């Protein structure tokens, strides 16, 4: 399959994630949308990794290429898990304080 399909799919997923972060008001759904953005990135990285591997093999059958991106994907997964766990802990703190996970209530600091 040509790489452009993967790029279109990843851009579509990423845009859905961005739109969700910008429009949804529930803190947990916002974190889900961030995960969607990160997964779009993972998909794109794996697709590019495959593309570079194929390009390298076409020139030299023994070549190894595109490993970096697959490693990168694992790092993104781990870091995203860490980010969400801190985020959920903060959501719990917020729920204790205002008994809601709606970010519209986070306006005490506005003027």
């Amino acid at each position: 399959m040509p790489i452009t399909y993967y790029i279109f799919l990843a851009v579509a997923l990423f845009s859905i994630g961005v739109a969700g972060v910008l429009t949804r008001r529930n803190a947990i759904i916002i974190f889900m949308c961030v995960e969607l953005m990160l997964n779009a990135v993972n998909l794109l990285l794996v697709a590019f990794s495959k593309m570079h591997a194929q390009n390298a093999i076409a020139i030299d059958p023994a070549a190894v290429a595109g490993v970096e991106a697959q490693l990168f994907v694992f790092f993104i997964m781990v870091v995203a898990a860490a980010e969400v766990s801190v985020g959920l802990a903060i959501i719990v703190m917020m729920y204790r304080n205002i008994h809601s996970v709606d970010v519209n209530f986070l306006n005490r600091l506005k003027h």
Partner: protein
Amino acid sequence: MSIFFLLLQQELLLTAIIFVLLFVKLSTKQWNSQTVLSFVNILLVVNLAAGFFFKEKGTLFGDMFQTNDLLRFEKNILNLGTLLISLQAYNWLLKHKHAIEFYLLMLSTLLGMFFMLSSSNLLMFYVGLELASIPLAALANFDLDKKRSSEAAMKYIMSSAFASGLLLFGISLIYGMVGSVNFTDIAVAASENPLFLFGFILLIAGFGFKISAVPFHLWTADVYEGAPVAVTSYLSVISKGSMLFVMTSVLSTVFANLLFQWYNIVAVLAVLSMIVGNLFAIRQQNIKRFLAFSSISQVGFILIGMSGANIESHSSVVYFVLVYLFSNLAAFAVINVISEASGKENIDDYKGLYKTNPALTWVLAIALFSLAGIPPTAGFFGKFFLLLGGASKGNYLLIIVAALNMVISLYYYLRIIKAMFMDANETPVEKLAISWSPKISMAVCMAGIVVTGIISGAYEYIYSLLK
């Protein structure tokens, strides 16, 4: 083998301190919090001093990690800032149940910044960046019983997660066009390919979030106001400073081929940051919010220096961050003392401060003069070098806009100085006894503001590191 330890000296020492603190925390013995805090501060002094003794440079981990004299110096600046903040937070942490966790989180973010500074690979850069930003959200929540603190943490973690999403999308596009995440490979392959440019712009957006340049500044004021004062000063000086160091070196080395493109982007960001930061700073009533917008406009000036893209402008950025560290931390030291003793954080509460606390007033006044860029202080020389670095491109319109903005900024800095010295107040802040640790921190900041300005050695030293 020994070269490994020498190259990683600053990171390893910091990791060792983190582990020692972890064991102190886990030990069954109940430590006196005064002992623990003094112990931590001594460790931080050792950490700062040790950084000056090593000069080895080189790369590690298959070119993922690099270090040289400039990076060592930048890390020393960050160490110094962390030590000063730790001294300022002493009284707040004495009363706090979880003082050691505060240091664990803060030093973890510092470690992340060190790896981010030393990265010569996008993977290392990303992991360092996340290590530097995730624990900061937990730090922002450190006033556990206050609603506004958890609100600040929520806003910080959301915007930083969103920003790292944008950054990663940019990284994946750049990887797709280059086929490598190494900085040297990217520098060679950087081209005006549309997809590469799109990735590059997303990367700059990720940077922009961390340094809170306008249009990406919306989280700044709320997080700065809600977070505890020590964390606010950490965010505005250390976190921002490290990101500025990285951004300057990445833009001028890795993306040197795209100079025309990023010069325009950085110039627009600079003008917007200066104007929006200044205009919003004028109408603020809370002093932490005020300093948030003032720091946004300072970033605008730093971006002008960055846009010069030569050795002079690079050293002017590093020099200004050093000066900014002293000036901003001096201001935050005073705010910390007053907020800790009386809970007052509004500018109106600072009216008549000179009658009750003349020493604090002078410290804050000198810090604000330095931030505004009044000649005998270091802030003037910092801004002078920044504008000189930016002017090397020959875009004098940009420099004129910056000079006009310096005039506007003078207005709102002087507004606070007028409130402190001249305005009458029926219920001023009562006379405060300042304990030794904030005193040391203020003295170092004052000395820094005077010495780095008057003695030209500081700038020349940074310049010599870059050559």
